[in-house]
C-alpha cells in the first residue's frame, strides 16, 4: 500500500488538501498513516494551548481613544491612492512604455521607415529594451545576494535588507512585464519572468538579517532554479532581438542623401 506523504497529511489536517476524500479513505484503511497523522495532531494540539492574553472588555474603546486624535477629518478619497509612491512608480513605468510606443508610432508615419520596421517590431523593441534593463538589474541584485557575507568575523548574521528592498521594487516591475509578455504572446519570456518572480518573492519573504546557513539556503534556491543562467540567456536573446528590430539608419541616410542630392 502506498502511504500518504507528510505534505498530504498536513494539508488534510489543515483543511487544504485537494483530494480530501481520497486521503480520508486511505486513513480509514491504513493504521500507519493514522498514527503519523496523530503525531502531527499532537504537535498542533500542544501549540493550540499557547494562550492569547485577553486585552479586556473595554479594549475596543481604548483603541478608539488612542487612534481618534490621529484620524484625519475624512478618509482619503479613492483617487488619492494613485499618488502613493508604489503606484506612482508603476504609473511611471507605464508612462515610459506609452511614450516610447508613441514615439515609435510617430516614426512609423515616415514612409521611408515603413519598409524597415513594422508596428509590431517597434512595440516589441520597446518591451525588449525595458525588460532587458529590468533583467540586468535583477541579475545584479541576485549576484550581490549570492556574494553577500557577514561584515566581520564577530558577526553571526548577514544583513540582506538592501537586496530585499531592491527585490520588492523589482517584484512590482516584474509583474507588469510578465503580464505584458503574456499579452504579447511571448510565452518564453513570461515563463522566465515567472521563475524570477518566485525567486524575488523568496528574497522579499526572508528575514532581513540571515544566518550564513539561511543565506546558503537562499543561494541554493537561486541555483536550483537556475535563474541567473536563465536571466543571462534571455538577456542575451533580448539584445539580439533588439539588434534585429532596430531600424537600419544607413538605409534611411542613403535615401535622404539621395533626396538631398536631387
Amino acid at each position: 500500500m502506498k502511504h500518504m506523504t507528510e505534505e498530504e497529511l498536513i494539508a488534510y489536517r489543515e483543511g487544504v488538501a485537494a483530494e480530501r476524500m481520497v486521503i480520508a479513505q486511505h486513513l480509514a484503511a491504513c493504521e500507519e498513516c493514522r498514527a503519523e497523522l496523530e503525531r502531527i495532531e499532537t504537535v498542533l494540539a500542544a501549540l493550540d494551548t499557547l494562550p492569547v492574553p485577553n486585552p479586556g472588555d473595554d479594549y475596543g474603546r481604548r483603541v478608539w481613544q488612542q487612534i481618534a486624535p490621529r484620524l484625519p477629518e475624512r478618509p482619503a478619497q479613492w483617487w488619492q491612492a494613485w499618488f502613493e509612491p508604489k503606484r506612482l512608480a508603476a504609473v511611471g513605468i507605464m508612462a515610459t512604455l506609452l511614450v516610447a510606443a508613441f514615439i515609435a508610432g510617430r516614426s512609423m508615419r515616415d514612409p521611408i521607415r515603413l519598409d524597415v520596421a513594422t508596428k509590431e517590431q517597434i512595440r516589441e523593441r520597446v518591451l525588449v529594451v525595458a525588460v532587458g534593463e529590468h533583467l540586468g538589474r535583477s541579475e545584479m541584485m541576485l549576484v550581490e545576494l549570492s556574494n553577500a557575507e557577514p561584515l566581520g568575523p564577530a558577526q553571526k548574521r548577514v544583513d540582506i535588507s538592501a537586496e530585499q528592498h531592491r527585490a520588492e521594487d523589482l517584484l512590482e516591475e516584474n509583474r507588469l512585464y510578465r503580464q505584458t509578455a503574456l499579452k504579447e504572446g511571448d510565452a518564453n519570456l513570461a515563463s522566465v519572468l515567472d521563475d524570477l518572480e518566485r525567486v524575488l518573492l523568496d528574497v522579499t519573504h526572508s528575514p532581513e538579517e540571515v544566518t550564513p546557513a539561511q543565506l546558503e539556503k537562499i543561494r541554493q534556491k537561486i541555483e536550483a532554479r537556475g535563474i541567473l543562467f536563465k536571466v543571462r540567456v534571455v538577456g542575451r536573446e533580448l539584445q539580439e532581438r533588439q539588434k534585429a528590430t532596430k531600424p537600419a539608419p544607413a538605409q534611411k541616410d542613403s535615401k535622404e542623401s539621395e533626396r538631398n542630392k536631387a
Partner: protein
Amino acid sequence: MIRMQPSVENAQTIAESDAVAVERTLAGDRDAFRVLVERHSHNVFRLAYRMTGNRPDAEEVVQEAFLRAYQKLGQFAARANFGTWVYRIAANYAIDRMRQRKKEEARKVEPTVHEEGTENDPVTLVHDAAPTPERLTQNIELRKQMEIALAALSHSERTAFVMRHWEGCAIEEIAQVLKSSSGAAKNTVFRAVQKLRLALQPFVGRGTQARAMGTES
C-alpha cells in the same frame, strides 16, 4: 484548533452593519468608524498577538491597522467584508513589525518570556492529570520550545500558519497577504507545520511519556 468564527447569520448581520458604518464614515461621520473599531479590535488583536508573539507589538499593530483602514477607506468596496479587510491590513503591518523587531533584536539569543506567569501554563489546560514537579518543569520547557519554534519560522511561514491554523483564513486570503500564488501560500503553510513538527516532536513525545508516568505515580 482555537477558532472564533461567528455563525453564518451572525456574520451576515455584522457585515451588513459594517457596510452601513463604512458608508457613514465615508460621508463624513467620523464616529461611525468607532463602531467598526470597537467591533473588530479583539479579533485583530488576537491575530496580531499570534503573529508578533508579544503584547506591545500586537497593540501597535491593532492601532496602525485601524489608522490605515481609515485612511484607505475610500478604496474599500463597501460591499466587501470590513472585518476581513482590516484583518489583511493588520497581517501586512504585523509582517513589517516582525521584520523591524527581528532587526532590532537580531543579536538576542534568548526568547522573550511571556508576560503571563505559569498560572496560564498552556499544557495544564489540556492535560487532566495532576501536575507533578517533573511535569511542571517539562510544561514550562515545552512552552519555551513552542515560542522558540514559532520565532524561528520566517515571517511568511508564521503569517501563513497563524492565518490558516489559528484564524481559519482561506488560502486565497493568505496568498493576498503574502503577495504570492495560492499554491505558494499552501506550500508555506506546509513548510511551517513541518518545521514546527521537527522542532517540537521530541518535546511533545517527552511530555506524553511524562504524563503517563505522572498518572501512574
